[in-house]
């Protein structure tokens, strides 16, 4: 650094890294702090605080902290069946939804005539609330619903699809309604993900001898991994929270965990046990999300 004037060189603390070496960095961090401050405040108020109070409530009792709420929760006759139902629903539903969403998205990528129309039609359920979806499907599956009318028109006996003693058909009804309602979320995410993948990769794979399934397995799916991961996390967490559809279709006959939370809170008026249930759902959701992130880690990103 050539200092034309002596005083500059004689200063006790020169600035060796150029005239603007350090100050901007400090300014940068404080600016960053300022910028994220509002969101920190909002997160604390709207997310952190309710969570803390929820946790406290879950462990709260008349004589201070206790695990009695959890005991009451597990001893409730509906609890384990709601857990079983929720898990069964997730395990069966999520693969179906992903296969369907992927198939629809690939179909749109192949650009048949009217593919943009398909996109909008398939995305419509995204805008339908879960309770409304449940009510729509209720008109199909209820004793005098469309399905039974259809059967009658073929001269067949009506079936009580949603009856308590008809578990399989009840489960199928909830499954179909949920698949119809919530596949579109996965679909939209997958379509967006596919759009960001240039066609060249699949074309190159084809030129080098890969047929449809090889291209899907070796090229499209790996490149789609980030989108699939996002969709999987979102969809699974939301699936843990399924409840309105089952409630509309079956009432209490097909209990789900979040439905139980609702019942404890409004029906049984016990906010503590409801909180305990909510805490269980949250913990399981978080563990699942972390599990997915670990499981589906993108190797090509890792070593960078």
């Amino acid at each position, binding site marked *: 650094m050539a200092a034309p004037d002596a005083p500059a060189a004689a200063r006790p603390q020169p600035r060796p890294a150029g005239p603007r070496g350090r100050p901007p960095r400090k300014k940068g961090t404080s600016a960053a702090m300022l910028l994220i401050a509002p969101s920190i405040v909002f997160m604390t108020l709207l997310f952190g605080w309710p969570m803390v109070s929820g946790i406290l409530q879950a462990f709260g009792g008349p004589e201070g902290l206790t695990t009695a709420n959890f005991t009451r929760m597990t001893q409730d006759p509906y609890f384990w069946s709601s857990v079983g139902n929720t898990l069964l629903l997730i395990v069966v539903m999520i693969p179906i939804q992903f296969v369907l969403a992927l198939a629809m998205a690939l179909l749109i990528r192949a650009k048949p005539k009217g593919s943009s129309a398909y996109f909008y039609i398939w995305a419509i359920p995204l805008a339908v609330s879960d309770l409304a979806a449940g009510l729509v499907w209720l008109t199909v599956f209820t004793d005098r619903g469309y399905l039974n009318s259809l059967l009658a028109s073929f001269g067949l006996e009506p079936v009580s699809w949603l009856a308590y003693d008809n578990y399989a058909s009840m489960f199928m009804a909830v499954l179909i309604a949920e698949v119809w309602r919530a596949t579109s979320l996965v679909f939209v995410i997958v379509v967006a993900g596919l759009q960001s993948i240039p066609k060249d990769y699949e074309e*190159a794979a084809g030129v080098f001898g890969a047929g449809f399934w090889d291209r899907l397995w070796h090229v499209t799916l790996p490149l789609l991994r980030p989108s699939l991961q996002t969709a999987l996390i979102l969809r699974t967490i939301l699936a843990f929270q399924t409840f309105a559809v089952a409630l509309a279709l079956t009432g209490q006959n097909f209990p789900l965990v979040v439905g139980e939370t609702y019942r404890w809170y409004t029906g049984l008026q016990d906010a503590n046990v409801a909180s305990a249930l909510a805490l269980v759902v949250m913990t399981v959701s978080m563990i699942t999300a972390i599990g997915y992130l670990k499981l589906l880690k993108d190797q*090509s990103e890792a070593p960078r």
Partner: protein
Amino acid sequence: MADISIKGLHKTYPGSTELATNNVSLEVAEGEFMVLLGPSGCGKTTLLRMVAGLDFPDEGSISIGGRDVTYLPPQDRNLSMVFQSYAVFPHRKVRTNIGFGLVMKKVPRDEIERKVAWAADLLQLTPYLDRYPAQLSGGQRQRVAVARAIVMDADVLLMDEPLSNLDALLRLDFRAELKKIVQQLGSTTLYVTHDQVEAMSLSDRVAVMKKGQIAQLGHPITVYEEPADRFVGGFIGSPPMNFLEGRVTQQGALEVAGQSTDAPEFLAHTARTGGLPVMVGIRAENIYLEQRGIPGTLDATVEVVEPLGHATLLTVDLGGQTIKVQVASTVRVSSGERVGLRFDQSAIRFFDTETQLGLTA
């Protein structure tokens, strides 16, 4: 190995009214190195994609080794390709990228390893075999794309500007290397480039394309020396061919810029009945500098002198028309100097002023 036979290919992209390829026919012999040369947007990639099966023509047919493949998907054509965009798989390491086609062909693992090592060595990629494409430079990625194509031993090798992203020195090296590799492989090669030097140096034959059509097909030297039309002469060569407006007089003399020299016999014949306007084409290196006033030379004035090292390029004003003249670097001239130009009679080409097509005997 197989020959490629392309017949009457028409292709219009959806939403476009212009033909991307317009009635292209081309025969590439077995083991031949054919270069498609043309300016950007002339339909080279489109033609290559149809040979690869990535796009289908609206009309016409393609057969490889006598088998009609016009509407076959790419995986059933036994070819390999270097994409203009590289299309190197970002989620796979260089090693598995290069071996991709072999894995698809279910080649035994040890043979794959051997071939990948061979190709990596050839393209100087060995140190990068365990990297992901994101960790490579553009030129390295392009080499991965080339390596992936050459390990395939395919009947047909398609290359879309495979050297475009290498720096000048590397490109020079790889051009020679590529020529050697392809000769060894013996694949029938269709090579796309917009670089005329590349086309000249690599090809057995070159097809010069213009607006979706083949303007000229021939050996590179023929195309260089005897361009079929003005476009080809203007596209190939650096500097491009000079074009001068001229006239063949009734007396059989060639008049250029108000000065006259002898016209070739075949033109003189046709002009007997009256003056014939022609476009005169001559390359910069076929014009010689002389003293002014020597019979048979044209008076001109030097405007710009550009020493290039191996030669000196002059921009010369010839009766109001500007042309380029290339002289030996030992020649001393300065701008503003008035000189005489002598055209190498055997190198002069003539073009129709209307159709722009070359005129020959």
